[in-house]
């Protein structure tokens, strides 16, 4: 298995604020990579750079062997990059099922009956099937997070980016979400997961990177990283939330 995503000295600054500072790393196909770091460290900006929502000041993004740095978000989505947003971004005037259909028809390129069947399957997997006809604007937080995941899956991704999908959930909700994510990973989808809820993250990921001020400051086996003095220092006070 080769590398599916390669960030090469990726940099992005908003005025004086550095969101990404010569960020480089590889993600192997089928891997699950965890990303942690303090608030404002540039984690979501890194996702925006990978999905094409943001253009970098310098550096390159390679996806599945192609340089996609100049591609817009739509084209990268067609190539197989999907994400869930930290702050859910539902199509609020449409039903849950229609939200799923958009991903299946526009990103995955499925048609008619095939798209409908696929959406039903994914909705069953993400446990939103009973809510299929509900307007997305009237969902609860957990349901909105599940909708984010549903849409991302309906896009048939090769690479799935999850942005704090477990934040704000109760213990029980979090456990069932972790199980769903484990199943998705087991089906062969490569995952990058940003999460403050570290115990949930550690149940899934094979490798962890730590980001602060847009820089990668540590990388390696998850438990070893969490026990390193440098990471403990950054997370002092944050670990209590987890």
């Amino acid at each position, binding site marked *: 298995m080769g590398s599916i995503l390669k960030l090469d000295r990726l940099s992005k600054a908003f005025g004086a604020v550095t969101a990404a500072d010569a960020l480089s790393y590889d993600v192997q196909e089928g891997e699950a990579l965890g990303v942690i770091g303090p608030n404002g460290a540039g984690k979501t900006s890194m996702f925006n750079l990978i*999905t094409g*929502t943001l253009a970098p000041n310098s550096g390159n993004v390679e996806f599945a062997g192609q340089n996609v740095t100049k591609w817009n978000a*739509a084209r990268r*989505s067609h190539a197989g990059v999907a994400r869930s947003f930290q702050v859910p971004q539902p199509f609020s005037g*449409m039903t849950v099922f*229609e939200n799923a259909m*958009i991903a299946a028809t526009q990103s*995955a390129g499925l048609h008619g009956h095939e798209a409908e069947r696929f959406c039903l399957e994914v909705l069953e997997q993400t446990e939103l*099937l009973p809510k299929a*006809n509900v307007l997305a604007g009237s969902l609860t937080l957990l349901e909105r997070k599940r909708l984010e995941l549903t849409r991302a899956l309906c896009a048939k991704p090769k690479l799935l980016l999850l942005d704090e999908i477990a934040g704000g959930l109760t213990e029980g909700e979090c456990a069932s979400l972790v199980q769903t994510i484990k199943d998705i990973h087991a089906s062969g989808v490569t995952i990058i997961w940003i999460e403050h809820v570290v115990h949930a993250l550690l149940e899934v990921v094979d490798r962890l990177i730590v980001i602060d001020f847009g820089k990668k400051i540590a990388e390696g086996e998850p438990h070893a990283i969490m026990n390193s003095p440098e990471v403990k220092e950054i997370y002092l006070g944050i670990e209590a939330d987890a």
Partner: protein
Amino acid sequence: MTLQDYHVTRSSNAARVAAILGAVALIILVAAPWWAGRADMRLMGELFLYLALASLWNLMAGYAGLVSVGQQAFVGFGGYMLFALTMFAGLHPIAAIVCAGVLGALVSIPVAVLIFRLRGAYFAIGTWVIAEVFRLGFAQISALGGGSGSSLPVAIVKSLASKRAMRESLSYWLALGAAVIVVTAVYLFLRSRKGLALTAIRDNELAAGSLGIDIWRTKFVVYVVTSALTAMIGALIFLQKLRISPDAAFSVNDWTAFVIFIVVIGGIGTIEGPIIGTLVFFALRETLADLGTIYLIVLGVVAIVMMLKAPKGIWGLIRRRYDLQLFPLGYRVIAPGKSDKS
């Protein structure tokens, strides 16, 4: 109860009833020359053309988020093309209307490339500026009467039909046909894959982009198609008026302000909204027009109250209460054991 027992439908009983009632209404309307008076037919013809303009503006602003206050540019352009093509190129008026649409599409392409660089309020102002440029430009063409405008020669009017009654019927049918074609086209487009993408853009551009929808291209196509159809409606409007001048052709009040009123009152971002809005607008106009300025004050008050109390318009109120959709665009998942009768 397995997943195989679930199925997906795109219709509902309400929509089927609405389709039958719509078909009956259409037959009655097509027969209007046999039951309606001349004044009524002229009024209905005008109503249909406003319905077409409102449906197009709704597609552009309500779905694609392109809040243009300059669609009079294309209404006037279409009107002037009708006059120019019939007077100088000797085209039949109907052929000239079709050509006006094609030319409208061609002109809208460079306009789109220019104004799509602007966002939000700046886009709106930009469209208005473009419309003013069109008005000033056509006022310079002395062959078309310059600033004072010109009338359609009698020979061209007669080429449509020699008898006056036949001309009036034909002009009514053209207006009705235009409204039916525009509403049907908007409906079929919104029901298609591209329409699903456009509805996603209406609700959330950020999410739409990351789900594979090319936002710029989708908006561009919507802008060009609505501009082309708006130009054709403009040609029809001035075929009924028989006289054109820059001020009438590029009037922001007549072709944009009233159209926005219709869409906002009826319910922006829905197909039903412009239909209801057009009926309300004409009802208000016909009952209050004798009052002069007070009529415009009433329109303004109605618009302000609606925006504060029901920002989604009359159709938004109805839909919230009854969960109705007369034009079935959506998808409904039917669970096993439940009927799909809604």
